[in-house]
């Protein structure tokens, strides 16, 4: 009789839910997000909707950074391009949310790919600087009324209270509808990313990340794969930008500053790079901390300002010292400990 869990086929080995503990967690955990909007306060439902939207954006960053090793500092710019594109598609073309998300994603993917072109020749911090340039260019672009208004459609834009998914059909507008739609989108993009991570494309991304010279000698086309990572990541961040406009209902370039880039990096580092669950854990942790800590800090220091960034700065430093691989790695260690308990090894 076997004394553990074994895979008897390659298909089983490649499954998303492979271990008994994962099946139990899925059965127990699945209903939670489905019943949450009916038991949580409106404020918390709103926090979780933002978690789902940022989750998609950080998944995009995860593809570019964790897989392909590209330090992309243009999350704010990518989200802005997605948001402004979606706003125009919804307000002017009236095509509905799903086409708006698709076009926003494609537009952002195109810009991300164009700004990823230097990655064909340079790497590391040089790429970071090129994408940082995009961050500043984009914000200035959307701030400019006269010169570029015909392109971006206006510095400040608002969205209708209710938006149809396709044209005017299947409209969503309430907080709960936005919550479930954002949740659905996060699940879709998380599954797509998990699928990607199990295939040769993600392996080639990781190979270039780890040792680009040997990867090329062994047949990996560096230029094509780097651009593909930018396109996939940019698409996801653009879609998140489109959802963000629905969530806040009103956009201005200030929402897409470098702060949002740093926030997404914090989420990714805190959760742990390299795993989709790490992304979701990191985004959820940061947003919940943001919600509760901000309120607590305001209660304790009514006159205090700028305490929240200080607090997050301390958290990042502590996490990087205690568990540089993030919370997901810490949970993995806990899982291993429990699996072996009461033995040490």
């Amino acid at each position, binding site marked *: 009789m076997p004394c553990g869990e074994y895979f008897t086929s390659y298909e089983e080995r490649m499954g998303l839910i492979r271990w008994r503990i994962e099946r139990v967690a899925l059965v127990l955990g699945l209903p939670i997000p489905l019943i949450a909007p009916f038991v949580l306060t409106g404020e918390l439902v709103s926090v979780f909707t933002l978690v789902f939207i940022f989750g998609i954006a950080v998944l995009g960053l995860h593809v570019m950074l964790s897989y392909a090793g590209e330090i992309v500092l243009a999350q704010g710019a990518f989200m802005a391009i997605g948001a402004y594109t979606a706003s125009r598609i919804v307000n002017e073309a009236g095509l509905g949310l799903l086409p708006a998300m698709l076009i926003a994603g494609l537009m952002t993917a195109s810009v991300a790919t164009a700004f990823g072109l230097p990655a064909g020749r340079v790497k590391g911090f040089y790429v970071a600087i090129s994408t940082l340039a995009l961050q500043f260019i984009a914000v200035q672009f959307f701030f400019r009324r006269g010169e570029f208004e015909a392109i971006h459609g206006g510095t400040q834009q608002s969205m209708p209270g209710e938006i149809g998914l396709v044209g005017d059909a299947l409209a969503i507008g309430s907080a709960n509808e936005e919550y479930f739609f954002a949740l659905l989108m996060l699940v879709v993009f998380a599954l797509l990313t998990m699928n990607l991570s199990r295939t040769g494309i993600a392996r080639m991304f990781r190979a270039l990340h780890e040792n680009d010279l040997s990867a090329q*000698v062994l047949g990996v086309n560096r230029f094509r794969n780097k651009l593909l990572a930018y396109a996939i990541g940019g698409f996801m961040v653009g879609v998140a930008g489109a959802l963000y406009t629905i969530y806040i209902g009103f956009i201005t370039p200030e929402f897409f500053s470098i702060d949002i880039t740093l926030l997404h990096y914090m989420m990714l580092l805190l959760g742990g790079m390299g795993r989709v669950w790490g992304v979701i854990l990191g985004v959820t942790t940061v947003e919940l901390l943001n919600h509760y800590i901000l309120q607590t800090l305001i209660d304790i220091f009514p006159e205090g300002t700028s305490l929240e960034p200080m607090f997050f700065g301390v958290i990042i430093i502590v996490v990087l010292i205690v568990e540089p691989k993030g919370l997901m790695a810490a949970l993995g260690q806990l899982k291993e400990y429990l699996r072996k308990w009461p033995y040490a090894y």
Partner: protein
Amino acid sequence: MSGQSVSQSSAGIRGGPQFPPEEAVLGCRNVTKTFGAITAVDDVSLAIDEGEWVSIVGPNGAGKTTLLNVLNGFYDPDTGGEIFLNGENVTSDPSYKRARKGLGRTFQGLELFEEEDVLENVMTVRAVKERPNLLSALLFYVAGGRKVEVENMRRVEEILDYLELWEYRHSTIGSLPLGIQRRVDLARSLALEPDVLLLDEAMSGLTFDEKYDMVRFLADLHEKEGMTMVMIEHDLEVVTDVSERMVVLDQGAIIARGRPEAVVDDPEVQRIYTGVE
């Protein structure tokens, strides 16, 4: 040129290639590679026949690895040099294209993907062979992505089995001894199913037993699979035991080529190796 005789040409060990490089499975003509004032490879012409095992030897700094790097596209040759793979002129192809056209290689410095385990290292190169498309990757279950991955894994585990790496397949590279890492490097290049395998000091730093194992695997590949191999190796005992032909480089130029027993008896080769006139 399959089946062409590899016997000593009439020009003897000082002659040029025994047949035109463009007719070889791997060949080069008038390849020179300079780095500033240093000539690392000096007007080298070479023709490797299908199924042949050729060793490139020479003292440190003779230009052996540079020649291999030029052959696989890591370096471009200086103007005028030409590289041929399966009869096709691939001089302008980058290294990844040459790999896809059938040129595999191992590395003297290993260059493995350190963070990954053995299975993932080999699966990565297998992915190159299969060229996955984005849609089938994203829609893993419905667009054939899983089928491709299952087939890749089956093939990779056959390679790991063949090289007796089965028990290490989930070990990360950093945790493995050098002998196993060299085998992983070989497994990785075999995942490409190459026509020609370039081995850059594949036995460097190995113990006697590890070297014996490596020779056993390579000899098996050569005899049973008919793999064409070009090997850089310092151990002359191994070279003379396994190679069908030997090329001696000194200061970037070929000074002798031919059957190992003829080459090692050559006074000029002995002078280079021993430093004694």
